[in-house]
């Protein structure tokens, strides 16, 4: 056997690149705001804002991927996001609880919806599953839209207070530094949420769940006969996936100051959740994150260069990427490394 195949063993003695990566990620995001500030001064406010949007996409993508590892191609991510956003907004509006409570409860609401949806769709596969989840998401959107105005604001939506309101003290700091403090705080919240998602993903990948998920994805019947309990694990994947999206929806509702049916349950949220991991590399922890950072950078870069039609370039990147990197960015890089490994082993 060549060295390359041996490295794919699942022995516990293997070096824990993933956990080290998570620690590096945590350290990197911990220092990123100050580093950006030191390097770019006031522009760091803007970069933090863009980075926060990229983190948001990463959470969306990675959580989608976790669910997809069981073969469940969900088109309900907007519903998880919206359920979290609306729950958070409702709590902020009607219940006198601290704002922070709303976010985990937003995650919880998403989990409840996900469990109901997951249980109903257990027997559906492939595109049938996808369309059923899409339909459920559209129905939830309509239900929220048609809740009495006094409860959820109806078509006008609801205001959601900001989580951070750093105070401007004239003479002590500049206005952009106040914005920096707020963006930094949001950045850390998003980053924490991403680290939690990454940790969940890593724990799945390191545990027997990885094999169970892969088995269910590739052949649910065979997996069942081999003792894997598909129903239970598919629901577990739904929980792991929805909880982070729900919390993301809650945090984002605070950050953008409002929830609206069209905005909080937008199909484009679902589509981005699906497209990003494919671009980056499916069924891995790294792929969806690389995909999110990659696509965010591509789009931001293009819009800075072309005032018009920058999204055409974005579309071209997507098309070319799938033609030339069928296994995503991570798959391409991994493949190149493996090939090099094989060559060296052959020497």
């Amino acid at each position, binding site marked *: 056997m060549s060295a390359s195949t041996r490295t794919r063993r699942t022995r516990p003695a293997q070096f824990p690149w993933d956990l080290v990566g998570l620690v590096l990620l945590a350290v990197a995001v911990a220092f990123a705001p100050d580093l950006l500030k030191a390097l770019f001064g006031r522009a760091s406010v803007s970069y933090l804002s863009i980075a926060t949007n990229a983190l948001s996409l990463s959470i969306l993508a990675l959580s989608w991927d976790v669910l997809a590892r069981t073969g469940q191609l969900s088109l309900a991510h907007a519903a998880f996001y919206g359920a979290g956003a609306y729950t958070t907004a409702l709590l902020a509006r009607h219940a006198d609880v601290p704002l922070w409570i709303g976010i985990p409860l937003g995650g919880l609401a998403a989990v409840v919806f996900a469990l109901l949806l997951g249980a109903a769709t257990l027997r559906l596969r492939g595109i049938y599953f996808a369309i059923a989840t899409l*339909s459920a998401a559209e129905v939830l959107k309509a239900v929220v839209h*048609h809740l009495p105005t006094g409860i959820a604001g109806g078509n006008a939506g609801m205001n959601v207070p900001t989580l951070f309101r750093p105070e401007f003290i004239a003479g002590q700091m500049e206005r952009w530094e106040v914005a920096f403090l707020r963006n930094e705080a949001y950045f850390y919240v998003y980053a924490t949420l991403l680290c939690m998602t990454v940790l969940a993903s890593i724990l799945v990948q390191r545990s027997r769940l990885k094999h169970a998920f892969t088995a269910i994805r590739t052949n649910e019947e065979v997996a069942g006969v081999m003792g894997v309990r598909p129903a239970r694990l598919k629901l577990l994947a739904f929980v792991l996936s929805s909880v982070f999206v729900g919390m993301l929806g809650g945090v984002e509702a605070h950050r953008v100051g409002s929830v609206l049916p069209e905005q909080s349950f937008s199909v484009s949220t679902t589509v981005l959740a699906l497209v990003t991991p494919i671009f980056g590399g499916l069924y891995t922890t790294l792929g969806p994150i690389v995909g999110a950072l990659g696509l965010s950078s591509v789009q931001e870069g293009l819009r800075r260069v072309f005032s018009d039609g920058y999204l055409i370039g974005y579309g071209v990147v997507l098309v070319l990427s799938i033609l030339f990197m069928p296994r995503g960015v991570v798959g391409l890089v991994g493949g190149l490394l493996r090939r090099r490994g094989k060559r060296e082993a052959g020497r």
Partner: protein
Amino acid sequence: MDTTLLVQALVSGVLAAGLYALVSVGLALAIGVIGIVNFAHGEFFMVGAFLAYQLFVTFGIDPVWSLFIVAPALFALGAIIYTSTIRFVLKAPELNQMLLTFGIGIILQNLALLIWGGDPRTIAGITYRGIGYQIGGVSIGLVPLASFVVSLVLVLGLYWMLARTPLGRAMRAVAQNRTGAALVGLEVNRVYLVAFALSALLAGIGGVMIAVIQSPTPVVGFAFTLKAFAIVVVAGLGNIRGILFAALFVAVAESLVATLVPNGDTLRNAVFFAIIFAVLIRRSWRTA
């Protein structure tokens, strides 16, 4: 609720089913024969609408006639897109195909935005948009009636083609068994090409109709495609007759709810997707 309103709701629902079915069969062809989940189907629809618009504005061609230009044009566009991209991902996982077609959709949509702008366009100088035949207080619109008839003819024509012609038989053979079909000497790639181009053509014709009914915009295809996906799936992949029934059922249900319930129009999508969800879930739990 008086009966006139009810009958009107039924008539409107039945007529709306035609366009639903037309958009759906094109998509069904792509999914059923080639196995491609085409996220850009709505953009073919949109391109068809803008072409009809442009032909009207530039050459004064009535959409009734531009149908015969737009259809081959979309066939060609479908063929080009198939040859340049789709055929390279036939064996790739369906998620890859989704990303590819999503990318194609973004390109087409933003090209349209660049060329035609974001403002809604209008094919203005046609006389038939507002015509309705009044029968006992119930109105039958000329445009919806015509689009219903054309859609029905096309869908049945496709059904006939799949059942009776050599090309149709080839498509069914390929749909059922890719490797087997290749063995009996069918040029699978050619069949795929035609199926995909035909799918774009059907979308394009739907687009011409929509250009008459409403305003072409870069995002005009979205609402229809979302529903078309659901109809195709609920009918069962490759089941053309099922599409007709599914389209009829959901369109009439939508129309009834929109009419009978206060603010019912805003419940259309909810009704539509609730039906789709219920059918899919029920079916999955019924079969053991």
